């Protein structure tokens, strides 16, 4: 009896080995919540489609969130338990983990699709490689982050005259007039410059840099340039608006809280919005909220919007079979004629291949297509500038100090000194 039991136990131990004794390769994918790429049902569907073509590759998925995802990856890097594939943007794949030598060069994936990607946006191609031309990201989708107004509030306040409803743009002067009109009509608070940290900083950065056409970094992405005349003027303008009660600034809330305030009609203008946010917040909109996406206001009326580019990178785990399987998966998801559009559709954003065209026409997410109007305003992808993680904290601290009444020039000098270390 004992011998039989021992034999059974040995067989049970050997089962996992026997199960993978065939040609099956198991790979792991970690994904941040990029639209429905954070939704298990959606991703399972994509993997099911993949396995219909490649049953020899088993994909295991782990879902990350933006509050703890970076910590999980950092821990995995130090423990050498990184996934084979990770889905995120160039600020992490290229500027952070790629620069630290943790990612694999995936230039070979670009061979056939480079022209198609450049045709969609040259900025995408530039953002996915480092200074030496090594590609660490293979892009799937992109968007431009914009802001949003409550059309109904603007209409009631007579502020629609200050926006270009066709182009969804406005000038700095129009923005200031709109704030006056909203205040006069009793729509207070009009908007909140959130500065509590933890993500969404693209909205506040775009607000500051667009007001007087400043740049966040230099053209080489080697230095943060908040100390330019245009940026200081913009910060002073915002500080004055807050001091006069035309605008609120709140170090106690983060971007998610600000979106909630917009959705429940507490504020009339939101600074953190995009096509995916429009879909994910649809159910939580108050009755009197009519979403109207807007570009950030700029002195010349031509905004330069902050881009988001998401795609896949490979961690260097030293297993060639897994690398090959991971590349097969990425190519399928991004380039398979039957799958590529579905993969982008899941993100709620726009394809990084010109050949895919308008993927939302005639679908449930047709309104997402409206956000394509902002794509021509896609600005410089500066999130690959060194010291990015530390700079983000410095940015929140800068805003907090300025809105607490700090001297703009002095505070900007402190920010630049710390961010450019």
């Amino acid at each position, binding site marked *: 009896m004992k011998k039989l039991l021992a034999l059974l136990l040995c067989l049970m131990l050997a089962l996992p080995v026997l199960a993978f004794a065939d040609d099956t390769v198991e790979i792991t994918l970690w994904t941040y919540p990029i639209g429905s790429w954070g939704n298990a049902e959606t991703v399972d569907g994509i993997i099911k489609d993949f396995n219909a073509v490649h049953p020899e590759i088993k994909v295991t998925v782990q879902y990350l969130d933006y509050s703890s995802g970076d910590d999980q990856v950092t821990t995995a890097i130090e423990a050498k338990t990184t996934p084979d594939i990770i889905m995120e943007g160039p600020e992490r794949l290229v500027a952070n983990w790629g620069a*630290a030598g943790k990612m694999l060069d995936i230039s070979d994936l670009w061979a056939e699709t480079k022209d198609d990607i450049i045709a969609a946006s040259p900025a995408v191609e530039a953002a996915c490689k480092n200074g030496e031309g090594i590609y660490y990201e293979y892009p799937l989708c992109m968007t431009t982050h914009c802001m949003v107004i409550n059309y109904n509030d603007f209409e009631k306040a007579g502020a629609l005259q200050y926006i270009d409803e066709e182009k969804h743009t406005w000038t700095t002067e129009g923005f200031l007039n709109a704030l006056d009109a909203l205040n006069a009509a009793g729509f207070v608070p009009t908007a909140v410059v959130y500065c509590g940290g933890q993500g969404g900083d693209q909205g506040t950065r775009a607000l500051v840099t667009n007001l007087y056409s400043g740049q966040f970094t230099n053209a080489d992405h080697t230095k943060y340039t908040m100390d330019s005349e245009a940026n200081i003027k913009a910060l002073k303008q915002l500080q004055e608006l807050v001091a006069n009660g035309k605008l609120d600034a709140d170090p106690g809330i983060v971007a998610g809280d600000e979106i909630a305030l917009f959705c429940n009609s*507490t504020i009339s203008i939101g600074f953190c919005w995009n096509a995916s946010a429009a879909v994910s917040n649809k159910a939580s909109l108050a009755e009197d909220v009519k979403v109207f996406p807007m570009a950030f206001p700029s002195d010349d009326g031509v905004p330069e919007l902050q881009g988001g580019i998401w795609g896949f990178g490979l961690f260097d785990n030293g297993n060639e079979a897994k690398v090959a399987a991971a590349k097969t998966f990425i190519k399928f998801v991004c380039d398979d004629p039957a799958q590529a559009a579905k993969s982008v559709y899941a993100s709620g954003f726009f394809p990084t291949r010109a050949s895919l065209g308008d993927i939302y026409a005639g679908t449930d997410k047709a309104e997402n297509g409206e956000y394509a109007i902002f794509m021509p305003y896609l600005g410089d992808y500066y999130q690959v500038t060194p010291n990015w993680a530390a700079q983000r904290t410095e940015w929140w601290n800068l805003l907090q100090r300025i809105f607490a009444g700090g001297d703009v020039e002095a505070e900007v000098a402190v920010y630049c000194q710390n961010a450019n270390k």
Partner: protein
Amino acid sequence: MTVLSSRRMISPAMKRARRRENISAYIFMAPSLLFFLGFVIFPMGMCLVTSFFNYTMTDFSFIGLKNYVEMFQDAIFGKALVNTIVIVVVSVPVTCLFSLWVASLIYKMRNFSTSFFRCVFYLPVVTGSVAVTVVWKWIFNNYYGVLNYLCRSLGLISRNINWLGNAQYALACIITILLTTSVGQPIVLYVSALSNVDHSLIEAASVDGATNTQVFWKIKWPQIMPTTLYILVITTINSFQCFALIQLLTSGGPNNSTQTIMYYIYYNAFKLSRYGYGSAMGIILAVIIALFSALQFKLAKTDNG
């Protein structure tokens, strides 16, 4: 002589039995000992070692005491240290006194009432910091928070206060939340300790004409002193390690006004990948906690006579 003769009388069979007993004891102890060595002692040793290295995602080079030198020149670390000490100095005595007061009131009640109040005060402990924090975030909300609503209704304030967004109030808010999650366990412990005080001594003192205050300080207080010491040490350690509240509510802001050593360690290690620098701060935090705990042991021992 008696001892020697009794030692001589131990037979080989008894020796074997004792050895077997010892071995059994070690075997029973082994799992927790291994766990303790692997997950407490080894990481502590690693932390000490890495604190002497420039340990980042791309580098691991020996730099001696440079991390420690940098730390004491780091203004944010200084601010974090001050904030942490403020949290400890305020929350530890308040937690102990409040818990003792509540426990003194409820331990004499009927069983049902005592259990009910113990349950009420223990709820925030078992609820989980994330859920508790979300509720408090809503209470403190600048735009539709209950606290602002109450204060305005009572005429205490004329316009909303940004409780978590104003450096003047943010740390006080954090300490308030910390108190609500800290008092549960001390209350349960004090209720138990007060119930175990020798009743015959209290009766004898009362017969001798002792007042309630005298009974408390002369009879009860010395008997609950070991519990007080335990509560002081545990609350001190928990207050020093205040992290989740900061991460979920303020991220150390506004302008580092709620920055604590624990959060700054996390920020350096996980956000900036400066593991060596984070380890050095961890070592200093451990030393500070050890000093505070030793001081508490010393004072409690003196009080105990």
